[in-house]
C-alpha cells in the first residue's frame, strides 16, 4: 500500500469548517496532512487517529513572503502554548492540529473571527475573483457584440465560439464563488451579532466539479473541431501551445519557490515573477507564431490538392506553380471558410512566359439563416452586383460584380449550403464556366 497520496483542494478558502472536517476525516482514515501546495496537497499514511484540526487566518501571510511574518510567528507561539501545532498553511489560511482530547478552541470570538476572515479574503480570494470576472467580461462582451453584429464572421472561426463558451463558464464560476462567499458572510454576520456561530457554506463542490468537467469537455470539443476540419498539424500546434503554457506556469511557480528560499522580500518576489511572466508569455507567443509561420510556409510548398487549379480551368500545363489555402480560423460546425489561391506561368505558343493566377473563396454554411446573412455580406455593396445566368455554371444563382458600370471578372456562385466567390484573369468561356461549376459545386 502506498504511504503517500495527493489530493486536489476543492474547499473554498473561507470555508474553515469544511476544511477542519475534511482534515479530521482524513486523519481518522490514517492520512495526515504533510504538505500544502497551491492546488494539490500531500498526505502521509500513519495510523488512524482522532485528531483535532483548527483553521485561523493571517491576513499578512503571503506565498511571496520569504518566511513567516512576525505576526505568524507570534500566532504559532500562542497556539503552541495552547497545545496546537502548525500543520500547514494555504494562502492566508493557517492550519493547526492538536492530539489532545479536548483542546482549547482556537477561536472563541465568532464576530472577531469573521472580521479577520473578511480581511484575509479582501487580500486574496476577492481580488483574484474580481480580476477573473473583469477578464471574463473583457473577453465575452466584445464577442457577444460580434456574434450579434456579424454572426457570419463570428462562426467562421470555431475558436470564437469555443473561447466564448469557455470564458462564459469561467465568468459564471467566479461570479458563483463570489456570491457564495458574500451569502455566507452575510449569514455569518447575522448569526455572530446574536452570539451564534458562523454559518455553513452550503453546496459548492458539485458546482465546481461540474464546471471543471465542463471545461475539460470544451477543450476536448476544440480538438475534435480541429481534427474534423483540418489535418493533425493544427491539433499538434494547439497541444504544443497548451503544453508550453503549462510549462510556463510551472516555471513561474518554481521561480517563486526559489526566490522564497533565497529570502527575497515580498516586493522583489512579486516584481521578479511579473517580469518572468511577461517575458515568458512573449517567448510563448513568439514560439507559437513561429510554429504557425513555419507550418504555413511548409503547407504552401506541399499544397497540391485544391478544388480547382489553373490547369483544370484553362486546360493547359503551368510552370512554377504556387498554391496556398487561407482559412479564417479553424472553422466551426456552422460555417467553414477557405480562400484558395493558385498561380503559375503559362508558356504561349510563341514561347512567351505569362504569369496567371486564380483565387476563389468557398464558404460552406450549415443553416439557412446564416446562409442568408453570408449572402448579404457577399453582395455588399448591392449596387455593384448584378444577377447573371446561373445555368452555365450549374449553380442555383450567379452574380457578377460591376465596376464603373462595366462587368468585371469577379463572380459569386450560389448553391444550397455553399457560396463561392472567384476572380479570374479574363471573361470565362462556356467550357470554363462548366468546369468551374463541376469542380466547385458542393458534394464534389
Amino acid at each position, binding site marked *: 500500500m502506498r504511504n503517500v497520496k495527493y489530493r486536489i483542494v476543492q474547499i473554498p478558502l473561507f470555508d474553515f469548517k469544511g476544511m477542519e472536517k475534511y482534515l479530521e476525516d482524513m486523519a481518522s482514515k490514517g492520512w495526515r496532512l504533510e504538505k500544502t501546495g497551491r492546488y494539490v496537497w500531500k498526505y502521509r499514511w500513519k495510523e488512524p487517529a482522532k485528531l483535532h484540526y*483548527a483553521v*485561523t487566518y493571517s491576513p499578512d501571510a503571503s506565498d511571496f513572503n520569504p518566511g513567516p511574518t512576525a*505576526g505568524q*510567528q*507570534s*500566532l*504559532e*507561539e*500562542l*497556539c*503552541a*502554548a*495552547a497545545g*496546537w501545532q502548525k500543520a500547514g498553511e494555504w494562502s492566508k489560511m493557517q492550519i493547526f492540529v492538536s492530539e489532545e482530547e479536548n483542546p*482549547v*478552541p*482556537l*477561536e*472563541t*470570538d465568532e*464576530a*472577531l*473571527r469573521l*472580521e*479577520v476572515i473578511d480581511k484575509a479574503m479582501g487580500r486574496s480570494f476577492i481580488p483574484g475573483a474580481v480580476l477573473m470576472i473583469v477578464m471574463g467580461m473583457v473577453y465575452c462582451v466584445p464577442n457577444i457584440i460580434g456574434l450579434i453584429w456579424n454572426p457570419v464572421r463570428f462562426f467562421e472561426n470555431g475558436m470564437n465560439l469555443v473561447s466564448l463558451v469557455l470564458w462564459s463558464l469561467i465568468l459564471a464560476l467566479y461570479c458563483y464563488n463570489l456570491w457564495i462567499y458574500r451569502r455566507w458572510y452575510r449569514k455569518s454576520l447575522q448569526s455572530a*451579532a446574536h452570539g451564534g456561530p458562523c454559518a455553513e457554506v452550503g453546496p459548492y463542490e458539485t458546482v465546481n466539479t461540474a464546471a471543471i468537467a465542463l471545461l475539460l469537455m470544451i477543450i476536448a470539443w476544440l480538438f475534435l473541431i480541429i481534427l474534423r476540419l483540418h489535418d493533425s498539424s493544427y491539433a499538434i500546434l494547439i497541444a504544443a501551445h497548451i503544453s508550453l503554457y503549462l510549462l510556463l506556469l510551472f516555471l513561474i511557480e518554481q521561480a517563486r519557490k526559489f526566490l522564497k528560499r533565497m529570502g527575497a522580500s515580498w516586493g522583489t518576489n512579486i516584481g521578479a515573477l511579473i517580469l518572468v511572466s511577461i517575458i515568458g508569455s512573449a517567448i510563448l507567443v513568439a514560439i507559437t507564431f513561429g510554429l504557425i509561420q513555419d507550418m504555413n510556409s511548409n503547407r504552401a510548398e506541399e499544397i497540391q490538392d485544391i478544388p480547382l487549379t489553373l490547369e483544370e480551368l484553362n486546360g493547359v500545363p503551368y510552370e512554377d506553380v504556387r498554391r496556398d489555402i487561407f482559412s479564417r480560423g479553424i472553422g466551426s460546425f456552422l460555417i467553414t471558410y477557405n480562400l484558395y489561391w493558385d498561380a503559375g506561368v503559362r508558356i504561349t505558343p510563341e514561347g512567351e512566359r505569362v504569369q496567371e493566377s486564380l483565387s476563389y473563396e468557398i464558404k460552406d454554411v450549415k443553416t439557412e439563416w446564416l446562409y442568408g446573412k453570408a449572402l448579404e455580406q457577399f453582395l455588399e455593396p448591392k449596387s455593384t452586383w448584378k444577377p447573371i445566368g446561373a445555368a452555365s455554371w450549374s449553380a442555383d444563382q450567379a452574380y457578377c460584380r460591376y465596376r464603373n458600370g462595366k462587368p468585371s471578372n469577379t463572380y459569386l456562385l450560389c448553391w444550397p449550403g455553399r457560396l463561392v466567390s472567384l476572380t479570374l484573369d479574363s471573361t470565362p468561356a462556356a467550357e470554363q464556366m462548366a468546369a468551374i461549376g463541376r469542380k466547385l459545386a458542393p458534394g464534389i
Partner: protein
Amino acid sequence: MAREKFQSLTEQMFYILLCLRHELCGADIAAQIGVMTQGRVTVGPGTLYNVLDSFLQAEMIAETKVEGRKRSYLITPKGREMLEAEYRRLLTLAADYRACTGEEET
C-alpha cells in the same frame, strides 16, 4: 446594531486588558485569565492573537519585549482609559439593574 469598534469591550477583551496592567508574555495571558475567572472565561489562541493585534493597532497596548517568538505587552495610557471606561459602563449597568430590581422588590 453593530458595535463600533471598542465602544464596548467583549468579556475576553476586557480580561486581556486587565491582565496587561502589568507586563505579560502573550503566551501567559490565556492562563492568567483562566485563573482570574476560575475557568469561566476562555480565550482561544487565535482570538488572543487577533485581539492583541487589534489593541496594538489601536495603541491600547504596546509591545515591550521580543525574545524569539515570545512577545510581551503592557497596557498604554489610552488602553487604561478604555478599560476604565468599560468598568464605568459595567457599573452603570449594575446600578441600573439594582435600581430596577430594587423597585420591583419594594
